[in-house]
């Protein structure tokens, strides 16, 4: 090879390496626990920035953008490099919470018309890397990639440090300042006219007067200072790791690095093993039983969810793999090793708006969990745990597991069958024509009621019969009607609940028609053969939802705020959602979610909507 050729080759290699170094995914911090990496952001070129920042997954950073300066702009105008991935990430560890996104930069000038509130932080910048800061976030630009990040120390960590300093200074409990207990705002205390003045009065009462000694910080001022220092320290730690030591998520977790090589429109990563740190229920183990906590962490090791997003014409497909570590994998394998109960198909009507089946074997899962978890617990040198172990072991010996798991085997199904008018009673006022004096009378009324059916597979039908028989003696509201049981006014003290205990199933429903006329199933009106076959062929889980009929008509009142948000993202859409799962092995379970839709919305918009739903679910 001639020198010239060698030079050319070296130049090519260098430029290739330099392109590699500029990849936006290399700016994802290793502490990110959940990541959406979108390969094909060309799809979003036409989506306005205002629309983009209205998504929940943009919330943490949207303050920078949502200041009016972006009105009328699209991503295309923002200086982004559409040949690089857009990576949205979130992570929460014990000390801090991080969120943000990394992306390619094509035109820095245009970029700063969007991120117009950032100032250069010179002490953190160098020739290669520029660090900018705003009130909430930091923007790091390195060559042709950028990272927008927000780092927040956790409140527990801030409080721990603040308390430590506060008490070390000889102070007493700061909470003595509070006189009365602060009431949670109630809907009965709606904000009204002239309220502002009072709020100021309340605040004055709540917080100690700093003017008593302006040189000494009160507890809250100290906490603010601690928060600021910890935030800075955590940011520096993360940036040092990312930019100096070059440790990023792809280099830290090869599973994510492999996922990034997939030829899909986007990839999804969630490290469940690290996610357990944010499970607040485990704080007791973390602090009081650290060795047990470590064992639990080990049990979770290797648990990760990886996904690919594929866009098709009028469809978005998610291929998801849940990978397990050895311990949990063994439990899941036993749990999901259950035969599909085809009896359930008889109780799902062919016109059902949405239904699911879930086949698990609780007995096998219990036996395996007992085998894996009990030795871990038995090792723990703690009196309380030892007593718990003894109790569990005795229960394991004394309890009739055949009866228990014969009553609740673990498999279940559910269906949402639209709305029906149900008959209720109402009181109405009537007026005497002579005097307009009024009286009250009971009248028939009708209310819209969402019709749900939920059933479990059962071997011991005699046990619920026993319970219902004795409950029926206690209250006349529970009655045996032959083919079914009825519990009058069980639902919100107004509508009856029906129970069908037949064909190896125990079914709860508010569908009078099902109980009275179809206690043995819908016969020819049952779920069609093709749909039934799909459900049967799917692994341990299957779901099919007609979006227009189910989501758009779902009674939002029965959901909590979080569930509401998820449903809202799908509202107004048409099409269907189908969830399929594979057989579970000791290492993994595969899931496939396909969302097919009609209408003029672009795939990019649908994709963002779905990403948002997943973000809300996983955050």
């Amino acid at each position, binding site marked *: 090879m001639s020198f010239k050729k060698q030079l050319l080759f070296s130049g090519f290699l260098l430029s290739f390496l330099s392109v590699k170094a500029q990849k936006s995914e290399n700016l994802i911090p290793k502490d990110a626990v959940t990541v959406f990496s979108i390969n094909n952001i060309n799809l979003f070129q036409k989506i306005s920035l205002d629309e983009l920042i209205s998504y929940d997954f943009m919330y943490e950073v949207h303050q920078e953008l949502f200041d009016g300066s972006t009105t009328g702009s699209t991503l295309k105008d923002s200086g982004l490099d559409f040949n690089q991935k857009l990576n949205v990430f979130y992570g929460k560890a014990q000390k801090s919470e991080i969120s943000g996104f990394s992306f390619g930069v094509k035109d820095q000038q245009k970029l700063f018309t969007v991120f117009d509130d950032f100032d250069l932080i010179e002490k953190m910048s160098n020739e290669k890397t520029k660090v900018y800061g705003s009130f909430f976030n930091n923007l790091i630009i390195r060559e042709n990639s950028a990272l927008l990040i927000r780092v927040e120390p956790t409140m527990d960590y801030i409080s721990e440090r603040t308390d430590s300093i506060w008490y070390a200074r000889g102070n007493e409990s700061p909470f003595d300042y509070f006189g009365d207990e602060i009431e*949670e*705002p*109630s*809907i*009965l*205390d*709606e904000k*009204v*006219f*002239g*309220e502002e003045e*009072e709020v100021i009065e309340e605040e004055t009462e709540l917080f100690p007067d700093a003017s008593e000694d302006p040189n000494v910080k009160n507890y809250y001022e100290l906490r603010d200072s601690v928060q600021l220092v910890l935030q800075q320290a955590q940011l520096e730690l993360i940036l040092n790791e990312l930019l100096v030591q070059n440790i990023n998520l792809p280099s830290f977790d090869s599973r994510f690095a492999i996922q990034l090589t997939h030829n899909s429109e986007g990839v999804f990563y969630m490290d469940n093993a690290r996610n357990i740190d944010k499970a607040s229920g485990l704080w007791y183990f973390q602090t009081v039983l650290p060795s047990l906590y470590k064992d639990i962490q080990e049990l979770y090791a290797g648990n990760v969810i990886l996904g690919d997003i594929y866009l098709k014409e009028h469809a978005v497909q998610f291929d998801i793999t849940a990978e397990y570590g050895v311990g949990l994998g063994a439990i899941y394998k036993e749990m999901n090793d259950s035969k599909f109960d085809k009896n359930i198909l008889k109780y799902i009507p062919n016109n059902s708006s949405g239904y699911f089946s879930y086949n698990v074997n609780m007995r096998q899962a219990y036996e395996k969990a007992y085998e894996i978890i009990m030795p871990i617990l038995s090792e723990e040198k703690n009196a309380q745990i030892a007593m718990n172990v003894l109790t569990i072991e005795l229960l394991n010996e004394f309890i009739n597991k055949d009866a228990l798991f014969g009553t609740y085997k673990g498999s279940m199904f559910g269906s949402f069958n639209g709305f029906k008018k149900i008959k*209720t*009673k*109402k*009181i*109405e*006022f009537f*007026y005497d*024509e*002579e*005097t*307009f004096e*009024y009286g*009250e009378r009971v009248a028939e*009324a009708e*209310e819209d*009621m969402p019709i749900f059916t939920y059933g479990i597979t059962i071997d011991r039908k005699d046990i619920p019969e026993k319970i219902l028989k004795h409950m029926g003696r206690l209250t006349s509201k529970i009655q045996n009607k032959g083919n079914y049981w009825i519990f009058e006014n069980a*639902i*919100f*003290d*107004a*509508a009856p609940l029906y129970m069908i205990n037949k064909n190896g199933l125990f079914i709860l429903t508010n569908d009078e028609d099902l109980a009275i006329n179809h206690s043995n199933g819908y016969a020819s009106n049952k779920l069609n053969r093709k749909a039934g076959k799909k459900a049967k062929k799917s692994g341990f889980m299957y779901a099919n939802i007609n979006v227009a009929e189910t989501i758009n008509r779902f*009674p939002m*009142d*029965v959901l*909590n*705020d979080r569930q509401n948000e998820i449903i809202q993202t799908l509202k107004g859409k048409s099409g269907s959602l189908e969830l399929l799962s594979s057989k579970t092995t000791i290492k993994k379970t595969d899931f496939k979610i396909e969302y097919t839709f009609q209408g003029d919305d672009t795939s990019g918009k649908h994709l963002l909507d779905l990403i948002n739903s997943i973000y809300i679910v996983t955050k």
Partner: protein
Amino acid sequence: MIKNLTILLILIFSLSSCIEIMDDLTIHADGSGTFRYNVNLSSNKIKVNSILALDSLDGQKVPKIEDIKEKVQQFIKTLDAQNGISNVKIEENYTDFIFKFSCDFTNVLLLQEGIKTTISSLTKEKNASELNHNWIIWDGTKLTRSIPAITMNKVKDLKQNDIDQLKLGTYTSISRFDKTVDKFSNPSAILSKNRQAVMVKTDTYSLKENPNILENVIYLISNKN
């Protein structure tokens, strides 16, 4: 507290497809009388129960029945202590969700003043303009009345989605007298057969569209005639 009750009502308005409200004002010759205000949600008890089962709605805490009962008792106690108001009662039916308020008053000015003072003392609503609105004026032979402005204001705040449901609700306003009614201004009003009571009825949607729809000036036949 009426505000509180009204907020609760409006909350329930917005989620109920069929609410029945009735106010009933009796004025005797000496200006004293009885005011009754009934709210009937029995045709929507499933929905009301489902709301009460929630922790929060639209970012605000949903009160438990015990909280509501406590507030109702506070209201009764405070209103009963007001000058010119006595015999304050609220019948609460949490099975069918029917609430019946009644009180006696010595004159309509004291009734309105008492309600205003009670609301002001129990809530933060000290200077609400709606509290200054006099919805009953009585001069001995002529009654000019509408419905409490606070109710109308809350109805006006409802979203289009809620309003569609309001079309199924009703508001009935009754005025009763010891004397015979001569004439009245509201063409929708009807007169009882004994000619001593006037009733105006509308649906809650129409009330939102036209807050004056229940306004009425009722003239009584004077004794001289």
